[in-house]
């Protein structure tokens, strides 16, 4: 027995020891797991947060100045031919991690690799839109254009034409000049080229390791493939300041690249770890095992992080996230035997499919959403108001549009007007859905429920959390009547919000069957304003759309938590740029 006791004490003594990470090492514990380190495939913040330090794009975001860029692998660029041609002059003397020199061939290879593979679950579609005019991979487009029963010869012909478009879209004028020929005017082309998918890959190294050969010979084998099974999924050779050492499950280890063309970074080793459990991340932060950790919300920061010694909370009221949250209304609910709309009639036990097409209903719902409670209770006052579905710091955002706050009298008045008074008289029953596990969206749904039900006892709202799988099913069937949703930016151009949210063909507006010709016309017109001197006009149109949306209410934007960064207090060089997935580049960090 004594022996056991001794062992326990010895082990306990072992347990209390703690260590701070070394001076030249940066350890980041994040909540999300990595999806893929192939720049073309990666479409999630966790993966991109690593890729942006390993690969570089032609231009990149300028540290902490939102909306500004600096030359990276390019030194300058020109827009020609009414915005249909972009020419980038490349930096000379840049080396890949493998030691290969970077030339135009690599840029051509990297961008063409996107256009060849076009994985459906990646961001490749917006490069296709810009360069070949096709948003899907070649086989899908062939089936779409020719139908299911097309002959092999027809398909081959289509594919050849597709390949030709790929070939023509990226051209090397010489070893250090690359020319992009666009399929049509694209206001966001420059912004799209800042996204990590356009990161320049070491073509010699990639080809040698079994990736696409860069030629027509085997391009058909790479159409629409899942790049997670490829070599680049967990290996990398870019030009960035960090070399990927190893991706082992939940840990990614990188070290500084000795041959980096720019300034040598102070941090030599980086460990990014996916740790799902928040308590574990906080404990690691406290002990100094992690230099930076993800924390879910301000409430946790205030309740737990602020009392820790040696920890710094970085925040700034001027910071704003590159995303928007809104409550959607479905203008014409679809789906056979739809469980979310009750009886499907305005009889007190359901809603008709076009229930939300009445502006009074939408207004009543908007006045029932307690925006102040979201701002104060959930986010503890650390949040940004949204007047429209666009990040507040972005060009085209109009901060002067009013926000409908909780006003149950007005809501009642509009409910009384809705559907000629029938809504008030008969009542209704509708289901608000949110994706299970998202507590903020759940709270938004429950707030709406509580407030609307208090207006009239005949109003009944059910709040139903949907599993991701059920949500997919419903989203595709367009069967959800009311649901809160968030959206993050792909590329740093307001078009990435205005089009999906407000255009009838936009990926989000489509799901709510929202169609308004006036919106469509304006958005399409704005897309033609590609010249630099037309940008102010374009942004003015977006502001106008914001004001129109206030009147039409296709959706109700609600506040979003303002960003913060939690680190040990000896970490320096931290800043926040909403377009950088990791908020900052590792190369700018150092330790006191």
């Amino acid at each position, binding site marked *: 027995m004594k022996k056991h006791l001794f062992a326990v004490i010895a*082990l*306990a003594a*072992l*347990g*209390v020891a703690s*260590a701070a*990470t*070394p001076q030249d*090492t940066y*350890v980041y*514990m994040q909540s999300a*797991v*990595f*999806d*893929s380190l192939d720049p073309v495939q990666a*479409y*999630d913040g966790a993966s991109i947060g690593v890729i942006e330090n390993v690969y570089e794009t032609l231009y990149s975001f300028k540290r902490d100045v939102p909306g500004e860029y600096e030359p990276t692998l390019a030194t300058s660029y020109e827009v020609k031919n009414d915005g249909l041609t972009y020419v980038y002059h490349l930096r000379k003397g840049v080396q890949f991690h493998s030691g290969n020199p970077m030339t135009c061939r690599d840029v051509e290879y990297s961008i063409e690799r996107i256009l060849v593979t076009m994985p*459906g*679950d990646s*961001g490749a*579609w917006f490069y296709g839109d810009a360069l070949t005019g096709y948003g*899907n*991979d070649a086989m*899908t487009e062939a089936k779409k254009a020719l139908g299911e029963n097309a002959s092999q010869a027809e398909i081959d012909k289509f594919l050849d034409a597709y390949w030709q478009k790929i070939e023509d879209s990226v051209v090397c004028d010489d070893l250090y000049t690359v020319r992009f020929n666009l399929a049509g005017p694209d206001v966001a082309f420059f912004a799209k080229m800042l996204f990590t998918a356009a990161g320049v890959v070491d073509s010699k190294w990639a080809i040698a390791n079994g990736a696409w050969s860069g030629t027509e010979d085997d391009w058909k084998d790479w159409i*629409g493939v*899942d790049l*997670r*099974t490829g070599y680049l*999924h*967990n290996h990398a050779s870019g030009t960035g300041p960090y070399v990927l*050492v*190893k991706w082992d*499950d*939940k*840990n990614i*280890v990188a070290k500084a690249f000795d041959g980096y063309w720019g300034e040598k970074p102070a941090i030599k*080793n980086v*460990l990014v*770890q996916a*740790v*799902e*459990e928040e*308590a*574990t991340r906080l*404990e*690691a932060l406290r002990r100094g*095992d*992690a230099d930076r950790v993800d924390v879910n919300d301000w409430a946790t920061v205030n309740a737990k992080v602020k009392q820790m010694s040696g920890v710094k909370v970085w925040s700034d009221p001027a910071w704003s996230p590159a995303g928007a949250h809104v409550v959607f209304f479905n203008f014409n609910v679809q789906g056979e035997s739809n469980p979310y709309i009750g009886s499907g009639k305005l009889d007190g036990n359901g809603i008709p499919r076009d229930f939300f097409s009445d502006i009074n209903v939408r207004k009543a719902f908007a006045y029932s959403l307690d925006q102040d409670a979201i701002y104060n209770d959930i986010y503890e006052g650390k949040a940004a108001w949204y007047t429209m579905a666009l990040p507040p710091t972005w060009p085209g955002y109009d901060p002067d549009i009013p926000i409908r706050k909780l006003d149950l009298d007005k809501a009642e008045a509009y409910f009384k007007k809705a559907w000629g008074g029938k809504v008030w008289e008969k009542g209704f029953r509708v289901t608000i859905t949110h994706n299970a596990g998202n507590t903020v969206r759940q709270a938004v749904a429950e707030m709406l429920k509580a407030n609307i039900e208090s207006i009239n006892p005949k109003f009944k709202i059910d709040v139903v959390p949907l*599993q*991701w*799988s059920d949500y*997919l*099913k419903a*989203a*595709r069937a367009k069967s959800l009547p009311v649901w809160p949703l*968030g*959206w*993050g930016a792909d590329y740093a151009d307001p078009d990435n919000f205005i089009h999906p949210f407000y255009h009838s063909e936009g*990926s989000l507006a489509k*799901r709510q069957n929202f169609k308004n010709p006036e919106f469509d016309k304006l958005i399409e017109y704005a897309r033609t304003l590609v010249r630099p001197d037309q940008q102010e006009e374009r942004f003015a149109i977006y502001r106008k759309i914001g004001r129109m949306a206030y009147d039409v209410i296709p959706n109700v934007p609600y506040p979003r938590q303002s960003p913060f960064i939690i680190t040990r207090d000896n970490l320096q060089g931290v800043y926040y740029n909403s377009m950088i997935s990791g908020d900052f580049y590792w190369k700018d960090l150092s330790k006191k």
Partner: protein
Amino acid sequence: MFNYITRRLLQIPVVLFVLSLIIMGLMQLLSPEQRAAAFVTSDKQIENLDLIIEKYHLREGFVVQYKLWAGEVLRGNLGFSRISKEPVLTTIRKRFPASMELALAAFVPIVLVGVWLGTQAATHRDSLLDQLLRVVAIVGWSLPTFVVAIWLVAWIYGGLGWFGIGRLPSSLLIELAGGDFKKYTGLFTIDGLLNGRLDITLEALKRLVLPAAALVIVVSAGIMRVMRSSMLDELGKDYVRTARAKGLAEKTVVYKHARRNALIPVITMAGPMLGRMIGGIVVIELIFNFPGLGEWAAKAALQLDVTTLLAFVMLIGLIMAVANLLVDIAYVVVDPRIRYE
């Protein structure tokens, strides 16, 4: 005996086949969109939902899907895990040692504690000690694993700041990624010794204490109960009385004679105990942030990643079958009276 073993071995593939049929069959209850849950993980990807459904043959019927899956499996390809973002087999190879290390770390104390306490209870039958141990056993048996694990995390780790969570501290993880450290077995405690890195062994051990303790609390109660009753049985038998009558010391009677025979029923408990342990490991790995197979499977269950779930169930089925076979063989070795045909 040889025939028996062969027959049992031949049964394993059949069991695995039926299990895969059941799981794949149940998947047919879902719509193609629902089956796509593991493939489409963000709102942005919904745009191409149809494409993805087609690409992974999610619209196909049961027969086609099963054939596709089984064809790959027969070729030695268990598929691609959407959870670990790598082939299933790679993940199993990487994570199996982690779970194995945890299981081994817990196994010895479980047996020792169970057998020792069981013997104590039986030899002090109806005394205060026995009553107390009975209560302890039944309480241990009643505690859900995740409750025990959470108590340990809250009190010992959170409250007292002892031991650790995960497999290794981050500084060592960075170092290991460098590649000088050779992974012979994948068990950090043993690899640390083989590489002459005592610090790694100690750090790994330190992080095994709490999860193993949780398993011991939950699993050893069962062994203890069986041990107590079988020990009582043995102590009441004639040969014990004879031995006592011969004037043998009580210690010799209890530990040399009775306990040896009392252990036989405990061996039969090995199968169910292993099952309980595997269930416990799933939860414990999740709570202690221990990157093993259980954590992987629990994540897969949340995201409905059937490829991963199927592989996990197959693996567990295999482990359980082999373990049960070994138990049967051990049975014969321990008790020569037993014969299999």
